[in-house]
């Protein structure tokens, strides 16, 4: 492997590291206050949420509209682990317990993803929208009834372990894994289902299996994001994950551009930060925000990045061969025949 190639393969991680160093430096010299850092953490969590939703809606061509439901399952799953099950863990175990919590949160969300994915993904696309919408609301209603984990008032005193470092780390891992997945036989099967389900089926692709796979992976990642979120704010309640929350992710996805990870990054980042910038407008804030969205969708219906992808978020045929395509052995083979 050449030096150039090594650099190429690690520079996306480098970007995150540099970004992290710059931000923490700015924070320590008091240019950025805690509020900015928190907005950045929310933006990153929203990128994770949006890109996982993108896997299902953008790359697999399904229509899931209850993604906050999976986020809440992850948030509760992780919080139960860190602030109930291992409440009295020794100080040294804080991080392992936190990581375990995030993992369990993801698994809980994935399990429910499987549970509702199997029946609904066998049916035609529109059913998924309705089922996921209902699912999000059912989860919220049930959590409200579960007194041991706080009921409608929610859980408080969750250790606030998630910091920018952890969140950037998971953001990096999630984007890397998703990119790898999309440029693999799995991702190609997802895209085939999106572009032409009948043809995908006719080419030997078990469409139900791949739809469920995509859905469960997305649910796991959303659960992970929920866990990260709970440990930023230290307090969660069922109503934090209502349909309004789900629709935020849909907006980030389509405004940024579905079917592109870059779109999810751009959409989630800009639209997390924008309402904060517009705070000076007080009551008018949401009106202006909505108007900006309408304008974007009218003039760029493909989303802001419109299907394009940053170099490190895609894998071209050239990349397979480390930068240069092999010379075709018999270019123009058609004439030879």
């Amino acid at each position: 492997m050449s030096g150039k190639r090594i650099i190429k393969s690690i520079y996306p991680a480098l970007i995150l590291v540099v970004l992290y160093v710059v931000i923490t430096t700015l924070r320590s010299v008091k240019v950025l206050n805690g509020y900015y850092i928190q907005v950045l953490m929310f933006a990153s969590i929203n990128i994770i949420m949006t890109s996982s939703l993108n896997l299902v809606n953008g790359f697999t061509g399904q229509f899931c509209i209850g993604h906050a439901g999976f986020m809440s399952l992850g948030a509760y799953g992780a919080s139960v682990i860190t602030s109930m099950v291992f409440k009295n863990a020794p100080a040294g175990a804080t991080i392992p317990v936190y990581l375990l919590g995030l993992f369990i949160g993801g698994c809980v969300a994935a399990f429910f993803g499987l549970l509702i994915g199997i029946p609904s993904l066998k049916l035609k696309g529109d059913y998924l929208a309705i089922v996921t919408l209902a699912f999000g609301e059912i989860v919220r209603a049930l959590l409200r009834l579960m007194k041991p984990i706080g009921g409608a008032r929610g859980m408080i005193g969750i250790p606030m372990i998630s910091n920018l470092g952890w969140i950037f780390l998971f953001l990096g891992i999630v984007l890397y894994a998703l990119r790898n997945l999309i440029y693999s036989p799995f991702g190609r099967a997802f895209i085939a289902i999106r572009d032409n389900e009948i043809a995908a089926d006719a080419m030997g692709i078990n469409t139900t299996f791949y739809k469920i796979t995509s859905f469960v992976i997305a649910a796991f990642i959303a659960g992970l994001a929920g866990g990260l979120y709970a440990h930023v704010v230290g307090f969660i309640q069922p109503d934090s994950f209502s349909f309004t929350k789900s629709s935020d992710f849909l907006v980030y996805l389509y405004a940024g551009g579905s079917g592109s990870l870059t779109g999810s990054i751009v959409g989630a980042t800009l639209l997390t930060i924008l309402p904060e910038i517009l705070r000076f407008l007080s009551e008018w804030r949401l009106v202006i925000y909505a108007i900006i969205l309408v304008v974007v969708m009218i003039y760029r219906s493909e989303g802001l990045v419109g299907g394009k992808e940053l170099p490190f978020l895609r894998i071209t045929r050239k990349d397979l061969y480390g930068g240069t395509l092999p010379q075709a052995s018999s270019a123009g083979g058609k004439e030879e025949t």
Partner: protein
Amino acid sequence: MSFLEITNLSIRFGGLVAVDDFNLSLEKGELVAIIGPNGAGKTTIFNMLTGIYKPTTGSIVLDGENMVGLKPYQFARKGITRTFQNIRLFSNATVADNVKIAHTMHNNQNLAKCMIRTPGMRKSEVELDRRVIELLDKLGLADKADFLAKNLPYGDQRRLEIARALMTEPKILLLDEPVAGMITTELEDMARLVPQIRRDFDVSIILIEHHMNFVMPIADRIKVLDFGKTISEGTPEYVQKDPKVIEAYLGGGYTQNGTA
């Protein structure tokens, strides 16, 4: 028993019997054409042979195994793949990816390996890419490997459909009007390509086509369909002279030379 044994295949849509008592014994390496006027039921036969429609009655037996009731993807896995009359490519994927997608069922890299992109997984991707380019080269599409499928000219799209079907490694290839809408030179290319595919890929081919000129020189046998019924079958020479065929074609507004 033949390699593919289709017996008394019929399908009914409400009052319409779209295919009535269709029979075909296909041997390994054989090339059989199905011809007939519009609406004769040709595509409907392919839809039954690929699991998209379930026949009302009759059986499809491939290599001794009953196929009726299987799902479309299972037909492909057992070795029957097709092209579509109304082209169905993965239009927002590249030409190379369209072909790679057809290799999914042979993929042996699991989810974890794909997400981590292990060295083994990378190697298998490179190998797959080489094979795909080789295949595209045979169909004259190698230089367009990175084009989006939707940006290909019509004739290339038809050839890409064939490349994609071949990548599934079929035993039986079903071609639904592979030269529809093609210009004469493309048609001549295809007339050379189809027999070459049969030889190089060791497949049996069932071919639906309106163009008599295209079918006659390459088919071993021809079945003629009209209103769902088989009205004639035999060698191209025989079928061509059969009065029933001439009548069906003239009655349907056809000339012997091709499309209406």
